[in-house]
């Protein structure tokens, strides 16, 4: 973040593409997009060394609006693709984004394992508690009992707290934010994008179309900041702010230092050579002669 002290080369507007967002007027995702522009500028990410990857959903349209390398992939698979990008090219800045359905329903398994692997990715989950793009079905974060297009008599399933899941699966940086709070969003994005290891930001991003204009207000009313002196290195402390019902605590819930997958794999590359030179194809082939 020291870059902010120097004369910045990239302005937020430099991260903007010509494509006009398809989002509904008032959609929470606009706030996240603006946050991303600002955070990238603050971190002075070189656009051509940055990759934004998503699945499918309203929120997953985001990479099309960011003037870096971008990939709006298939439903639920942002993280596998991001994993491939980052493992193959560890020097890149890799940001994965998507919705609650994308990341927690169809993509839930990848989320679990991305947390566990602790690869240096920042994953932004735009949580509107609904399937936006497909016009309003229940998501894993839709409150139990809510009527949606797919739950005529009310959602019969309890909802999940993505932050709790991330912590239990070993993510090393876990935060909750609100897209209506731009400053807070930028702050968390900057921290998440600079974290070494898997950073998970669950950002509440209202869907005015399928959750109604109220969602914005309801969420805002529930908002609380983390108490002063919160110890983010404690799993049990962090879990105190998960599965809340009447309030919603935002901020950096959890942060620990653990070797990242990039570090571990790099170390293995060194070990593998035992100080020698990398083998050629011929060396590899010759290993198949009978060894006696």
């Amino acid at each position, binding site marked *: 973040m020291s870059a902010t002290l120097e004369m910045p080369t990239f302005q937020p507007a430099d991260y903007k*593409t010509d494509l006009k967002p398809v989002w509904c007027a008032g959609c929470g995702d606009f706030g996240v997009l603006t946050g991303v522009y600002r955070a990238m500028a603050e971190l002075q990410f070189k*656009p051509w060394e940055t990759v934004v990857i998503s699945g499918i959903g309203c929120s997953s349209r985001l990479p*099309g609006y960011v003037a870096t390398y971008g990939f709006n*992939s298939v439903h639920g698979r942002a993280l*596998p693709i991001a994993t*491939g990008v980052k493992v193959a090219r560890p020097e890149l800045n890799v940001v994965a984004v998507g919705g609650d359905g994308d990341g927690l329903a169809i993509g839930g398994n990848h989320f679990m394992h991305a947390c566990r692997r602790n690869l240096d990715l920042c994953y932004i989950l735009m949580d509107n508690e609904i399937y936006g793009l497909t016009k309003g079905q229940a998501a894993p974060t839709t409150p139990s009992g809510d009527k949606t297009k797919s739950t005529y008599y009310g959602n019969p399933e309890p909802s999940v707290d993505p932050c709790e899941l991330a912590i239990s699966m070993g993510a090393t940086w876990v935060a909750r934010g609100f897209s209506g709070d731009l400053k807070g969003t930028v702050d968390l994005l900057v921290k998440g994008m600079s974290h070494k290891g898997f950073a998970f930001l669950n950002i509440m991003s209202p869907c005015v179309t399928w959750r109604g204009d109220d969602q914005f207000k309801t969420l805002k009313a529930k908002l609380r900041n983390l108490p002063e002196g919160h110890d983010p290195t404690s799993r049990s402390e962090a879990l105190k702010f998960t599965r809340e019902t009447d309030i919603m605590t935002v901020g950096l819930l959890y942060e620990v230092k653990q070797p990242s997958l990039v570090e571990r*794999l790099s170390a293995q590359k060194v070990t593998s050579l035992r100080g020698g030179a*990398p083998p050629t194809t011929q060396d590899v082939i010759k290993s198949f002669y009978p060894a006696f």
Partner: protein
Amino acid sequence: MPTKDLTIAMIGSGGDGVVTMGEMLAQAAARDGLNVIKTEAYGPQIRGGETSCVVRISSEKIYAQGDAVDILAVFNWADFGRFKGEVVLHPNAAVLFEEADAAAPTPADLGLGEGHSWVPVPFLKLATESTGTKAAKNIVSLGLFAELFGLPNESIRAAVEKKFTKKKAAVLEANLKGFDAGVAFAKALPGDLGARRLLYTKGSPKLLMSGNEASAVAAIHAGCRFFGGYPITPSSEVLHFLSEWMPKVGGSVIQTEDELSALGSCVGASFAGVKSMTSTSGPGLSLMTEMLGLASMAEIPTVVLDVQRGGPSTGLPTKSEQSDIWQAVFGGHGDQLRAVVAPTDVADCFHATVDAFNIAEEYQLPVIILSDQGIGQSRSTVDEEGLVHKVVDRAIPDPALGDKYLRYQDTESGVAPMSSPGMKGLMYQTNGLEHSESGSPSAMYLTHEKMNHKRYRKLRPIRDKYERFLQFGPEKANVGILCWGSSAGPVREAVAAANARGESVSAFVPQLIYPFPKHPFLKFLAGCDKLLVLEISFAAQFYKYIRTFMTLPDDRTILFKRSGGKNLTVGEVNDEIRKALAAKLPLEVKK
């Protein structure tokens, strides 16, 4: 009568050491410059279940596993029964079996003829007496076989030494004693057993590898530096091998949570500019269906090695079949383009894999390699000189293009250069939606039609540039065989034998499956009176696939197809050739 070509089958339970025995035999033969093809088959147990290992050793070039077994070692007749229909004996076979096993059948039960030998052997007794442990039964047999059948005695002994060199000296010594006990027992045997002696002169060592290993080596050679995989029989060896070797060449291997993620990670790595591959078998390929479509739509090069096993569903995980061709060519919703190649033997796994990378990178699409358990897990000798293959890289856009760069420019070849992260000024945002030349999503009919044209335009140049096929036999023939993949070996041998008998038979084996090398095939077809299509798929997937783009002459086309579960044998091909030669033209056509 001495021979240049011996097929030895060993059958027992896991504890009998059949696999080790076969491997030592193969290694020893490879060390002496002989040609070897070794296959194994298992029951459902992980350990201790029935196992069969068939090693064919020859001083001449061979192309198929031996199907008529010359020498059979049975440690347990119950296990033998579990390979019914799969292990077929030569009428003159020598059968050596555990004399303590009361469940022995009669030679007639096994369909043996006049010239057979029937030899009870006290494997167990010999082993315990000479080494103190029954675990050495296989070592005893090795000594016995080496002596009796002229197998590379000295090299096998060296293999035994190598195997136990890291153990206590006493263990090594005991095993060598066991080996010698086998040799001694053989020397004492009466009769004409020695008539099946292998005739050869020692040559320089050969490589011994499996098809899966050959594919893995090829990936490294082709410049693949990312492998994302999920274990599955019979392809896991690729993951195992690369987990050791990839880091050494600066690449990465990850074992993902499932196959969707495996191919997803490959798509990501390739998008990031790094050549990538995954390997799997049928169930995994099925799970990759949607991600293949993304690679197709976003035009991202990547390679999927599918080592086919018996299907559908979990099917026959350890047995071979040629029944993933429909999934490879047609699997997936929408009009999605990919290419499919198929190796014909272990060494060809190397070439098919490099080709797969070359096609993928040159034409920016996913390429599937259809190998099978019969090639992937059989180990065979390979000549080092043959493992050479040119590598092609993807085209990179001119950095000067800047804002004018169109990732999906509608070029004449259908291919536009592909930038990757790190390249300044050439950023683009891609997706699996239909999109314009710049990559912006579009649901417009006109865009869709134009971009479908663009993508499918690649097919013809791939076909013409990567036109790979094998052809055996004379140009004009009464019967022309069309087959693919692992069937090539037995067909090649059967054709050679038929030609030697003066029969007019030839064969065509495409190694590029989709697009298909149509013109050379048409030429081949024009030279044949009858076409005999051979494949190991109950639904006749290959035959039906061919029909989609080519009108075969129904009144002179014969189809032989059957389920997998056992590899195609030279004997079967012989039978079909015989029938086809006898068939009168025009053939009757079913409506």
